[in-house]
Structure formats: structure tokens, C-alpha cells
């Protein structure tokens, strides 16, 4: 019963909105506003085709490589910077500087430096998506509880064991908060990186349709992006639920008491 309820809650609002959209577009409409049935049809013909291989998959693969690299690099650098005070003092001004640069402005520059290829697009994704992971990891590592740290020391838990059993789990709530932001920034930058001088990918396809006034096709590309967002959020929630079950339980306990 609870599963049925959850599914109902999940699809309730989308179904309602689509119904409203369908009702409002029954009559004659603006050329740029698509009708639901027409869009569904277009969606099928545009995306259930070779485009999956030529545009969808390359984008997704670049996105995943970019996200994975952002998370791994962000956590590794964040742990280092959070652990060593001198490294923090040394890197802080530089980090603030680079963090303030909007990654889209890097696209033309990186095109010149790296060329118009997959590496350039992945670097653009990393350049924007690494910051929330990196900065949250630094904060999480710095905030590791002093009593827990003393406890670990008295039991001889040092070095790598300390990292594995104390620092990483202790910082994991903050790391996960950073990863959540990293996913949405990554998706945005995936699209942007494909909008200039590209010849494949979702961003390229959407811009191509827009310039050719293929409006339903353009909308179908935007819908694909939305669906990727939902997919990412599902994966994230699954991972977070497993990794941070203890954290949510602890928080709930503290709220109740």
C-alpha cells in the first residue's frame, strides 16, 4: 500500500501539470509553444533513433567522466587542504580566485588551448563542478570532532586508518551536500560546453533545432535534459540513503530529544 502511495505522490503533480498543459493548448497556440501529444510523438521520432548513439551517449559519457573526476579530485584535494593548515593558508586566495570565475567564460579559452574535442568539454565540466565538492570536503574535514579525533589517537588509529574510519565518514554529510550541487552544475556545463563549435551532443542538437525553427524537436531535447536530471537525482538519493543512513538517524534522534 505504501508503495502505491509513494508512486501516486511521485507522478501525481506531473500528471496534473501535463493535463493542464494539454487543456490549455487544445485551441490554436503560439508557434513556439508545443502541444503535449505532438511533443511526445516528436520525442519518440527524434530520440528513438541513431541520435542516441551520436548525440545522447557522447554527452552522457562526457558528463559522467566529468562528474567522476570532479568528485574524486574534489575529495582528494579537499582532504589534503582540510588536513594541513599550511596548505590551506597557501591555497585559499587562489581557490577564491578560480572559484569566482564563471566556467562558461572558459569555453572559448579552452577551445584555443585544448582544441574542440571531448577533453575540452570534460575540463569545462570539471572546472565548474569541482568547487562545491572541494570546498565542502575542506569544511567537512576541518569539522571532524575533537573528541572523536582524540579517541582515534588513543587507540592508535592514525594515518590511512584515520582517514578511512574517521575523516572520510565524518566529512561524508558535507561531501554529499557538495556532490548534490556538483551534479546539477555538471549537467549545465555539459550543455554549455557543446553549444560552441561542437558537432555532436545534446547541447549542440538543441541549438541546431532552435536555429532551424524545429521547435517541437528543440523542446524534446530540453525534455531529455530534464529526464537526465531526474535520473541523476535518483542515483544520488540511492547512494546517499545508503551512505548517510546513520546521519539522518542521528539528526532525527537529536531533533526528538
Amino acid at each position: 500500500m505504501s508503495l502505491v502511495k509513494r508512486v501516486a505522490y511521485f507522478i501525481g503533480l506531473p500528471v496534473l501539470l501535463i493535463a493542464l498543459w494539454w487543456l490549455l493548448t487544445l485551441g490554436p497556440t503560439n508557434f513556439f509553444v508545443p502541444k503535449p501529444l505532438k511533443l511526445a510523438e516528436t520525442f519518440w521520432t527524434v530520440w528513438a533513433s541513431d541520435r542516441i548513439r551520436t548525440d545522447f551517449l557522447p554527452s552522457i559519457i562526457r558528463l559522467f567522466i566529468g562528474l567522476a573526476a570532479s568528485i574524486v579530485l574534489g575529495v582528494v584535494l579537499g582532504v589534503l587542504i582540510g588536513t594541513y593548515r599550511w596548505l590551506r593558508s597557501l591555497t585559499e586566495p587562489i581557490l577564491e580566485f578560480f572559484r569566482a570565475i564563471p566556467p562558461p567564460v572558459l569555453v572559448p579559452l579552452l577551445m584555443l588551448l585544448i582544441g574542440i574535442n571531448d577533453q575540452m568539454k570534460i575540463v569545462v565540466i570539471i572546472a565548474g563542478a569541482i568547487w562545491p565538492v572541494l570546498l565542502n570536503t575542506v569544511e567537512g574535514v576541518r569539522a571532524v570532532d575533537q573528541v572523536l579525533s582524540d579517541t582515534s589517537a588513543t587507540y592508535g588509529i592514525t594515518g590511512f586508518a584515520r582517514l578511512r574510519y574517521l575523516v572520510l565518514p565524518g566529512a561524508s554529510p558535507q561531501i554529499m551536500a557538495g556532490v548534490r550541487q556538483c551534479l546539477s552544475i555538471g549537467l549545465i556545463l555539459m550543455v554549455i560546453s557543446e553549444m560552441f563549435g561542437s558537432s555532436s551532443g545534446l547541447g549542440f542538437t538543441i541549438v541546431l533545432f532552435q536555429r532551424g525553427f524545429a521547435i517541437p524537436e528543440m523542446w524534446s531535447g530540453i525534455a531529455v535534459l530534464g529526464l537526465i536530471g531526474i535520473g541523476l537525482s535518483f542515483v544520488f538519493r540511492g547512494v546517499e540513503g545508503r551512505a548517510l543512513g546513520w546521519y539522518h538517524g542521528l539528526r532525527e534522534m537529536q531533533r526528538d530529544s
Partner: protein
Amino acid sequence: MTVNELTLTKTNPVTETNGSAPSPMLSVQGLKKVYQVGDGEIEAVRDLTFDVAAGELVCLVGPSGAGKTTLLKCIAGLLTPTSGVVQLAGKTVTEPPKAMAVVFQEYGRSLFPWMTVQDNVELPLKNQRVPKAERQQLVNDALAAVELSHVPKSYPWQLSGGMQQRVAIARAVAYKPKVMLMDEPFAAVDAQTRADLEDLIRSIWKKLGVTILFVTHDIDESVYLGERVIILSNSPTVVQDDLTIDLPEQRDQLETRSSPRFTDLRSRVYEQIQLAKSRALTGPTAVPRKNQKP
């Protein structure tokens, strides 16, 4: 009551390490800790010297702010003393020694909230590469000793405060230390639980023959638990008094606490602490005299 009627055994405050006497399990000699605060200095511990013999249960009691936690951290190897040495079984402590386990006051912050009760107790053993079967046995025994065998898969935060502190004690017990340091471990639990935990410590101490140094600010607790009570002065800290608790080994919350001898000892500790406080108010003095009449 007069103090002269009491039979108080003193330990020699200055212990020669090259003497022929068997070396103590834990030896604190001339310990001094000064914190640098901005331009100034805060002298938390002035000059502490005492020994704890193997298998002893010693309570350290002192007014709040007496530098008890500083002292304990120096003994545990978490802080480096400004001068003086701490020796464990004849070896100078420079980092947290392997043969020592510490139970902290803040049980909620000393257990890993991302690990189950069992994993918490097991972690130090896993880190020491104790074989799995032996590890399992030690964990089970330790949890049984603190009567928590029924919750190995629970998370610490799902348990009451007293139970959490028992998990921390089980973790220390499973580690099989030579010396157990306890830093006001029951200060944050309710009175009833506290009485149970005091009896638990006594029974674990008797069963395992481990050396225990128990820091507390509670006078009754120190007398009830200890075989010996070391009274610290106000900060900057020195040893104010050192007395043997000659209560029967089998202690009982009701009987022991209402016995005249308990009351005598308790008064003695109380007077010494009052003395320590007034001395702090009238300014620092030389090392306190022993055996003085209050």
C-alpha cells in the same frame, strides 16, 4: 570526627626511578603544563608527582578547573607536557601508548556514529590486526561484561546515554589495556545510571585486574570507587593530598555509602578540597604540607 583518628597511608610524592622498589605501572613526575595564550601564559598544571601501582584503582579528584583534563591528556599522550615526564611501565609517554585506553566524558562524541555498537568496539582491534575469530570473541566478551550483548547491531545514537557510555567502556575493555584512563565518564548521566556504572567499573576492575585512573569532580564517587584518592589543588595544580580508601573491597551503594567510615573519608576529601580552594583564593603557596589538621 578528627582527622587524626583516620589511618591514612601516604605514598612518597617524590619517587626515585632508580630505586630498588618495583617500578610503578604509571608514574607522573614533576609534570607541568603551561598554555600559551596570545602574549600571556596560563599555568594549568604546576608540579604534579604521583605513582599508580599495577592493578590499582585510583581516583583523581579536584575542584572544577583544576586542570584534571589537561593532566589526563598529558598522561594519555595527547598533549606534550611543558616539563616533567609521564612513564607507563617504565617507558616515557611521548604519543598515545598502545597499552592504554581512555574513556571520555562526552560519550556522544567519542563513539563513531556511523558504526554499529559492535563495529565501534571492534575497530581498535581491527586496527591492531587482531585475527577475526579472536576479535569476535573479545567483542562478545566485552559487550557481555557491560551487559550490552543484546544490541550489537544498534547504532550508538539509538541508545540511552548510560548505554552509550557502556559501549565506550566495552571498547576499552576489549582493547585489553594495561591502564584505563577515565575522564569524568559519568558526569553526564543521570544519578541512577551513574550508580550502576560505578558498580560496573568496580566489577570490571576486579575481574580484569586492570590499572584504572579515574578522574572525577564528585567527592562521593571518588571515595566509593577508589582504593586510593589523590586530591588535586586548584589551578595551577599540585597534589593536595593522597589517601588510601580502606573500605571493604566488596562495595554496595546503600551499605558502603551509609557506613561511618565512608562518611569519615568523604569529609576528609571534602575538607582538603575546601582547603585547596581557599588556598587558591589567598594566592599561590608552596607545596602543601601533608598530615595537617584542617
